[in-house]
């Protein structure tokens, strides 16, 4: 028998055992039904996250995380670095698109009841990832150290301080002190590029592993055994790719036509500028707090509002364990609550922008 020169694939297979992964991917199938379109949003969120990681790493080559240099370094990226304006604007826009995609993904999984047994942990890891992406947004927003971000951070951490018992500790922990200073900036930078990414990696790995393990969930109205399926590779993946390319085109257009503003450098001694507002994904909470009366049944209104949102967040994480589907009932509590929450979020956000 003559010795065969092994191909590269064989060489890697002997050392990595990669064909097992290949087989897994080749077997992966995606159900085709009335609601299949929502399957794209998980991959879209993942793609936009990858865009964030890449543009974020590029920005790391020039960004300087101290109060004296942060603003100037972002200005430098915007004006001196070749295509710096492009990388920075894509990073800012993609953050917003990613969070929007994450919300859509979450609501679609909610209404299609993708969290049913045995996928409870997939849901829990996903909910935590959603909160993580909000934390990414909040910490990243401060990094250019401009006036709007400075005051938005001040207000946001003030709200954290209102939480009972742990509030004051939480405020100091977030701010790196009693006030928002350069220490806050350095700390938020650490959160944004190290702690949050590490946590996100673990949660994401868990989430993706569980999705592969359990396969794609189908809505309650569909029979999983009779539903037609397509292969992930190449059919579904090519569709995914089209969506991702469209996202790239949209991001490039946003960066060139609506470049992200730099604003003015933060000055702790000057008064807050008019019309400060957190990023859009916090706006509905911010607007709610504006409308809550000062006292409700003798208790502090703002505190109650914050506790209410905290409770809502907790319920979100525990959704698989608190919702029971009753096949005999004409309507179920969960989609009703879900619709109310969604409408509320949209309405309050719209109100904030119309009024402000």
């Amino acid at each position, binding site marked *: 028998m003559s010795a065969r020169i092994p191909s590269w694939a064989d060489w890697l297979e002997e050392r990595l055992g990669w064909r097992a992964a290949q087989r897994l991917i080749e077997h992966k199938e995606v159900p085709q039904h009335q609601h299949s379109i929502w399957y794209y949003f998980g991959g879209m969120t993942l793609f936009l996250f990858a865009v964030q990681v890449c543009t974020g790493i590029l920005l790391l080559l020039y960004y300087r995380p101290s109060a004296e240099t942060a603003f100037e370094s972002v200005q430098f990226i915007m004006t001196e670095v070749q295509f710096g304006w492009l990388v920075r604007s894509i990073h800012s826009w993609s953050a917003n698109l990613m969070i929007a995609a994450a919300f859509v993904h979450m609501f679609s999984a909610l209404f299609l009841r993708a969290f049913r047994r045995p996928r409870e942990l997939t849901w829990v890891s996903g909910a935590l990832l959603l909160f993580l992406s909000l934390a990414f947004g909040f910490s990243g927003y401060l990094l250019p150290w401009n006036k709007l971000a400075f005051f938005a951070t001040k207000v946001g951490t003030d709200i954290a301080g209102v939480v009972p018992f742990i509030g004051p500790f939480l405020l100091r922990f977030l701010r790196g002190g009693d006030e928002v200073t350069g220490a806050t900036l350095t700390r938020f930078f650490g959160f944004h590029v190290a702690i949050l990414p590490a946590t996100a990696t673990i949660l994401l790995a868990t989430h993706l592993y569980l999705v592969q393990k359990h396969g794609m969930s189908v809505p309650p109205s569909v029979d999983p055994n009779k539903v037609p399926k397509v292969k992930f590779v190449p059919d579904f993946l090519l569709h995914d790719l089209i969506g991702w390319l*469209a996202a790239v085109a949209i991001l490039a257009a946003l960066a*060139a036509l609506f470049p992200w503003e730099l604003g003015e450098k933060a000055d702790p001694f000057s008064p807050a500028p008019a019309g400060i507002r957190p990023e859009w994904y916090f706006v509905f909470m911010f607007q709610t707090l504006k409308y809550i009366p000062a006292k409700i049944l003798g208790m502090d209104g703002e505190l109650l509002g914050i506790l209410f949102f905290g409770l809502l967040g907790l319920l979100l994480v525990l959704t698989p364990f608190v919702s029971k589907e009753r096949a005999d009932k004409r309507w179920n509590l969960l989609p009703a609550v879900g619709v109310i929450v969604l409408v509320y979020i949209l309405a309050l956000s719209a109100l904030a922008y119309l009024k402000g």
Partner: protein
Amino acid sequence: MWHLMLFLLFGTAQDQPVAKATASSCVQCHLELEGELQEPAKLSTQDIHFQRGLSCNNCHGGDPTVGIDKGSAEDSMSRAKGYIGRPDRKKIAALCASCHSNLDFMRRYNPQARVDQYAEYLTSVHGRKYQAGDTNVATCTDCHGAHGVRPVKNPNSPVYATNVAATCGRCHADAKKMASYGIPTNQMDLYVTSVHGAALIKNRDLAAPTCNSCHGNHGAAPPGVDSVANVCGQCHAMQWDMFKKSPHQKAFAEGNLPACVTCHEHHDIKKTSDDMLGTEQSTSCATCHDKDSRGYAAAAAMKAGIVGLKKDLETAGELLHKAETAGMEVSRPIYDLTEGKDRLVLARVNVHYFDPVALRKVLDEGEKIARTSQQSGSKALGELAFRRKGLAVSVVILLVMIALLLLKIRQISRKAG
């Protein structure tokens, strides 16, 4: 010499024993009275004389060491001990001067104190009328106060820079008081609306002039028509220098017109604007220069030049601002543009040469800068357009890719199906 006579007549304040304010029976007693008699005692704590260890007797005479515990009012308010009661208004100035014009005495308290206030006062309009027996005019106590006299540097003093106009205005803005002197009473109203008044009173800018800056303090008198410009020129030195070299200097002198004031007024000096220059009816130039005169042509040329430079700088500024807000790097052109604005300010000062040729030089420097800045702004906007074109190209590539993928998908599904 005659100061000495006054001293001998009334006794100098320094002859009186220097009593501690707190131990002064005058103050102790008068604090227990009411109204007009109590006021001076209450004010004694804020009075600089008391703070330096002087007391009531240094002006009024009498003995502050007797009184409440050791005697009666008559004992301290004793004519024998030099008590003069309320000083005669005609003698107040000399009374103050008995200390304040004595260098040996004053240097014990403030070695840098001036001692010529009384001498100056006697040369002033107030002083001359005062000596002639007019008791309506201002004397020391009218401006500085009689009791509770604060140092000039104290913001609560009636003669602190920001309060001077109101102090002078107490008489000079009062039509009844000024009726017999035949001088206008609108100066304070005019001053308060002027650019100097606004700077001093609203912005607390102590560099701005007030009444005494141009009229003098103790030797207050209006500056003469031929010398008022020297007063303005104290601060506005460059304009005064240029004016003196201009054709207006001779013309104004011959026409007995005061320089500066003729165009800029004196009490209600308004913030200057380009509208003062030119040939329209409302300009300063048109007041004298007829349509066919050389001055008219010069005014027209200078106005056109300045307005032109202003416009070019504004255009450049807008262009650069547009580029900057779009994220372009334009810090150098913006820096250069500030030099252009300097030229515009300098040009407005150089108008006082009243020579279009001289002005042209400054204007041309400014124009050159405006042109360069405009070019930089255009270049930055050009780069912006390049980015948009690059975007269009990328989007086209991506759309082509998407279209091909769609075809590929169709092909694969046809093969499978």
